[in-house]
């Protein structure tokens, strides 16, 4: 039983990991067919994973409503929004438009989801402005360099900046293309080494936090 619970999943990870890492080097059609099937499976499993991800929300808010915790009314709003969207969604067969004509589902999407999600991030513009005034200080030489580079790029990326200081466009291009690219490249290499090391550790069972469920 312990084997089935503990070792078996690790074995599955190891075998699938090794197979699909090796697949990369094998051009034979049989190996390509394997890749085709596996990615198709991943697509389907991905759908289940998505459902799993959102259902934890069900629990949290259902508990809130049941216990009448502070702000449970908002949880009711959340539930109403979710169930309402699902109802119109299934009624419209999951399509926002049919032959170019918007359905009720499309209406919910266009007039509720789009403005809500868009505005959530638009408010950040205001906070950046206020932080620019209150906290973006050159408190060290590093921060000073950062702010100067930021100001140049901000100037160089808008027509007014290029109009006022014509060379700012070229300098910001150079910063992005050369200085920024070199740093990002080093970071990319470092992060990739980390990712490859992590993948190796996962395949060989050294890293198992993904299995979850505590230390059983």
């Amino acid at each position, binding site marked *: 039983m312990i084997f089935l619970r503990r070792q078996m999943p690790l074995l599955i990870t190891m075998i699938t990991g090794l197979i699909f890492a090796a697949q990369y080097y094998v051009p034979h059609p049989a190996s390509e067919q394997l890749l085709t099937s596996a990615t198709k499976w991943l697509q389907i499993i991905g759908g289940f994973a998505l459902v799993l991800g959102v259902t934890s929300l069900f629990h949290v808010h259902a508990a809130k409503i049941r216990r009448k915790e502070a702000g449970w009314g908002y949880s009711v709003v959340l539930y109403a929004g979710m169930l309402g969207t699902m109802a119109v969604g299934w009624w419209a067969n999951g399509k926002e438009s049919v032959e170019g004509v918007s359905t009720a589902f499309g209406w919910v999407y266009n007039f509720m989801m789009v403005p809500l999600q868009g505005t959530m991030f638009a408010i950040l513009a205001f906070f950046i402005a206020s932080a620019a005034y*209150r906290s973006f200080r050159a408190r060290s030489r590093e921060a000073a360099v950062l702010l100067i580079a*930021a100001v140049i790029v901000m100037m160089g990326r808008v027509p007014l900046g290029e109009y006022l200081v014509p060379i700012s466009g070229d300098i910001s291009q150079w910063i992005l293309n050369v200085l920024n690219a070199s740093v990002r490249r080093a970071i990319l290499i470092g992060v990739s080494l980390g990712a490859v090391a*992590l993948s190796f550790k996962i395949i060989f069972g050294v*890293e198992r936090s993904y299995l979850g469920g505590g230390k059983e």
Partner: protein
Amino acid sequence: MLKKSANCVPCLRRSASRRQVALKASSTYPRGYASALHSLRPCWMVFLNILMLIVVCGVSSAIVLAEDQLVAPTNLQAFDTPNDGGESLTVNWAPSPLDSPDARYQVLLGDAGAIDAASLKVIAEFPAQTRLVKDLKGPWWTKTAERNWHQFVIRNGKGVELKDGTAYTVTVAVLKGEERTVGPLLRATPAPNWFNWNSVNNLVLTLLFGGVVFYSIAQAKRREIFLRRIPGLDAVDEAIGRATELGKPILYLTGAHDMHDPSTIAAAVILGRVAKRTAAYETELLVPHRDPITMAVCQEITKQAYLEAGKPDLFKEDSNFFITSDQFSYTAAVDGIMLRKKPAANFFMGSYFAEALLLTETGASTGAIQIAGTDSDHQLPFFVTTCDYTLIGEELYAASAYLSREPVQLGTLRGQDIGKALILSVIGIGVLLATLGVVTQAAWPQYFLDFFKDVK
């Protein structure tokens, strides 16, 4: 494995094509040359063959020079394209001194039984000075001909339908003005391959790096591994000291992700260190959470830290508390805590999204010392400008490994360091060699450089 895969089908084709070339070329070319025709040969043989081809090529061009009229493509070879999934053939032939801008080559293809060039179909036509081996991508160890030779790869597409295991007749014709001469008819069979030698460098480097990581982890389990001190940790101590002086609390956030994320784990490890200090200095610690499981884990860590500091009585269960999983509501609540309690030090460890700026800005306005550590690169600029000290990217993991002394973490870090050292030296040596290559016009630096290229 590889040799075995070159069994029956390629062998058949090999003997067939060898016969074809031998018929036409037996008088002019050395016999050993025919061995260059098979497709699935190991790399070292390819290399030998190339050396031989250099010799052959010199001989043949000297002979062609002596003649005046249009000569059929010489040293023509056709074989299964190596390192691919099949359904493809490759044709190589030697350059000719008549390769002028007005001359053209045609590639012809037909069934295995064809004995007459007229029954073959023209599948490609191009100027004589194009389609050279040197213009093609691919590392030197899989090249099937000299750099200045011609190469054409026949693939399935318009009018071409190659089937694996079926033999085909292939040849090349040369055209100049009205004249047209057809080369010898060769036979070749496409077949799928079991290994792509073009990416063998990828495989070797990947295995090497994997080996290094596991070796370092094993080393770390056996003995102490040196890790340089992370300056950010000094800043942590300093901030706690100041909070004690001022008699104000310390605020510690563990980020947006749950316990599955390495950044949250690192944040929890550093929390252990911070809690130990706050216990020693008897400073109040506040840890608001976004994830109940992370909260439970952090509660344990804090308790342990107070125990280790010898002050278990000071530990408060509610110093770790859950607010809400919702991004902006959480942010508003934490901002509220900052404004009301005015902590002397704020710690932002772990992963953050758009809420980062809202948090650090409020913290800065209350005059707290702020220390951040995150791998969320898109938020790093904001942390750097609004915080007094920032652990950048991998430094967060390094700080956590430094504190926890956990062999797997330390070993991985060391393994990655070796990987980086290797890359740094490859870049250094590579640039030197590449520059030498330009200055001396030599081709040999390429033998080193190709190994660190992505050449498929």
